[in-house]
């Protein structure tokens, strides 16, 4: 049977995932997950349960499903299109593995650890700015500058240049939205500006290599092979494209989750060593990347369902991370022992920058918990839709100053 002809298809739930009001954390989705491990959608199938998401995420029968994203949106050329088709996110097989091998050493957890004191200093500097007022707009005052300045620290560029990086990353991020075609000129202009920026940075480090992250990329070699200038440039654009919005949104979602679970915020405040666990827990129950897209490369059968080559398979992260079959107590619990979440995707396309994201958020959350007591919404919050990458656009909060 296939998705279209399954005899029991009346029992298979249907989810309209492109409806702007579609909600991941909803009765509709919980009911669908209870009824079936997958749902039909307006665009492929959605996998809802932990065990099946875990298996299919890493299945050799599926490849990354975003390669055709520009074409699906009527975009068939231009700077973004060219970059997209050559970036690590969509490359497969040996083309992917070669680039990944050359990029990996710069993202080593051993090297990222050295940046921790700078992440801590940055978090405290940002909190100092608003702590006395008892309120802040958490995204504009903390999450966005923090996520972007972490990138400037990593890239070894002046932190004062963060607004430029934030603007370019956000503009290129429009390419992932439903208005991509209308925004194409803006997106391509931002890619051009970021290319110039990246090319200058690469030239500088080629002339004056040091111990920093970009120098490591420039010098990276394996079996006599190196990244050429175009590959280096594309990688830096990917870092900025993939590293800013995601971290900003995830910090906002973390604050939302802790505001809903004040006793867990108190626990984190009292035990800052739970910072790393806090990151895992909020990404399990409230991930910014709400689904990971894959595409079947061949016809195959999984749990009695025939999945035809070309079928789009959405792997739902939040639904899988709160699946009662895998998590009998799915609530946020910093002391709980839970299986790994898939907020960073998985398999060969597992997020390249996850050690950076984990390290910077692990420092930020306990510092925030230690200084901001009883954080709460004060109204005026605005949110991205749940389809694709979600999170708060604005998150005004009030709190009691601790220190």
């Amino acid at each position, binding site marked *: 049977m296939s998705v279209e002809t399954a005899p029991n298809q009346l029992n298979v739930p249907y989810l309209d995932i492109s409806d702007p009001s579609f909600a991941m954390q909803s009765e509709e989705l919980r009911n669908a997950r209870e009824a079936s491990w997958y749902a039909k959608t307006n665009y492929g199938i959605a996998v809802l349960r932990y065990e099946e998401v875990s298996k299919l995420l890493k299945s050799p029968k599926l490849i990354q499903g975003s390669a055709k994203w520009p074409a699906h949106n009527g975009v068939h050329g231009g700077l973004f299109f060219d970059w997209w088709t050559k970036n690590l996110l969509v490359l497969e097989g040996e083309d992917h593995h070669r680039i990944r*091998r050359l990029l*990996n050493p710069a*993202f080593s957890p*051993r090297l990222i650890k050295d940046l921790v004191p700078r992440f801590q200093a940055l978090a405290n500097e940002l909190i100092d700015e608003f702590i006395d007022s008892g309120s802040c707009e958490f995204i504009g005052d903390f999450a966005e500058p923090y996520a972007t300045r972490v990138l400037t620290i990593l890239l070894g560029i002046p932190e004062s240049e963060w607004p430029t990086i934030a603007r370019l990353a956000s503009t290129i991020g429009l390419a992932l939205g439903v208005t991509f075609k209308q925004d194409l000129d803006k997106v391509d202009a931002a890619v051009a500006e970021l290319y110039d920026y990246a090319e200058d940075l690469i030239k500088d480090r080629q002339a004056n290599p040091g111990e920093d992250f970009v120098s490591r990329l420039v010098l990276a070699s394996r079996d006599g092979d190196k990244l050429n200038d175009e590959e280096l440039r594309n990688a830096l654009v990917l870092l900025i494209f993939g590293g800013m919005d995601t971290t900003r949104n995830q910090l906002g979602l973390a604050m939302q989750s802790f505001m809903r679970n004040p006793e867990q915020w108190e626990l984190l405040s009292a035990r800052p060593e739970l910072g790393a666990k806090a990151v895992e827990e909020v990404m399990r129950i409230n991930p910014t990347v709400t689904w990971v897209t894959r595409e079947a490369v061949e016809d195959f059968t999984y749990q009695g369902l025939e999945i035809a080559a070309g079928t789009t398979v959405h792997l739902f992260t939040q639904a899988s991370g709160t699946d009662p079959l895998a998590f009998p107590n799915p609530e946020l619990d910093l002391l709980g022992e839970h299986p*790994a979440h898939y907020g960073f995707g998985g398999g060969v396309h597992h997020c390249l920058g996850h050690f950076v994201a984990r390290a910077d958020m692990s420092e930020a959350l306990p510092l925030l918990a230690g200084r901001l007591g009883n954080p709460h919404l004060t109204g005026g919050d605005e949110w991205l839709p749940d389809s694709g990458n979600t999170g708060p656009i604005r998150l005004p909060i009030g709190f009691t100053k601790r220190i």
Partner: protein
Amino acid sequence: MSQITVDRKLCDNHGQCAIAAPKVFSMNDEGVLEFEEIFDDALLDEVEEAIDVCPVQAIFVKD
């Protein structure tokens, strides 16, 4: 020669080690990790990259 151990409770079969050190680690048709427990020290750099890159840090080496 050195010996690899993998904590199978942690290992989630992402396969990043098989990209970093394909002479030592591989994924079978079912997507499950297979590896050579004993490896030649000439491959130590590759194996160390695999250890570093493992998303769940499940790989260990002893001499």
